[in-house]
């Protein structure tokens, strides 16, 4: 007898061979029966207590087609089909959730783009203003120089008027 076990989250199946009872009886003569019983029990306990999931191999080639267009297959394969259906339902739900998650991630990227555009617009605006301020400051420097020259000229002229009066 053979059972298949696998760890949670693993896709690989591991087979464990259990000896039939008649073989156990045959081995009684050579004195190793206790050892083999112990190994069998250990294998069963491992599969049960370590949260292993036991499942027979799903060999769909064993499905037999009948003459009346119906199909005959074993109970194991029936469970396999049930698991397949369950997996499909779960996969569809996962797809829905992941598509929604993708849409939300797209929205996140759109928000990041908005932030980027916001700072780009602010930077362009600030650059324009800095250029304007720079131009005005340089013009004001000439104006201030001209005003200083005029003031000096007026002061000299006023002084000369006062002295010559």
């Amino acid at each position, binding site marked *: 007898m053979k059972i298949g076990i696998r760890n949670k989250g693993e896709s690989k199946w591991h087979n464990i061979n259990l000896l039939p009872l008649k073989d156990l009886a045959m081995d009684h003569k050579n004195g190793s029966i206790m050892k083999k019983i112990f190994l069998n029990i250990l294998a069963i306990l491992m599969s049960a207590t370590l949260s292993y999931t036991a499942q027979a191999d799903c060999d769909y080639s064993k499905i037999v087609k009948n003459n009346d267009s119906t199909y005959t297959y074993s109970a194991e394969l029936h469970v396999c089909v049930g698991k397949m259906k369950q997996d499909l339902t779960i996969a569809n739900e996962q797809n829905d*959730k*992941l598509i929604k998650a993708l849409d939300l991630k797209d929205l996140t990227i759109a928000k990041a783009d908005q932030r980027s555009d916001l700072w780009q617009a602010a930077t362009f605006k600030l650059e324009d*203003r800095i250029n304007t301020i720079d131009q*005005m400051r340089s013009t004001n420097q000439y104006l201030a120089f001209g005003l200083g020259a005029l003031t000096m000229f007026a002061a000299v002229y006023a002084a000369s008027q006062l002295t010559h009066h």
Partner: protein
Amino acid sequence: MADQEHTFLEKFSLPLSTLWEQYRVFLIIFGLLVLTWKFREVIIDLLVTSSRKTVSDAQKQDTTLKNEEKQINDQANILRKEAEDLSKNKPNVDEDWNKK
């Protein structure tokens, strides 16, 4: 000396109307230049204040967008986690699955 000072100070008593009549052109040009210079200084101050406001507004808007982005990203991560958990917590399938 006192007489000289008195005479010097008296020269300042020239009436403003005479000053305006004699130096009108100079005073107008001077006044216009001062007004232009001061006007441009005010404009520069306004531009600086406006620039500071632009940065402040952009920071506020950025904070809002950042919070929205974080919320949406968290929702997406929750959905992804839920999708992952779906395959982890599968119920056992028995032989009567087709009758349920």
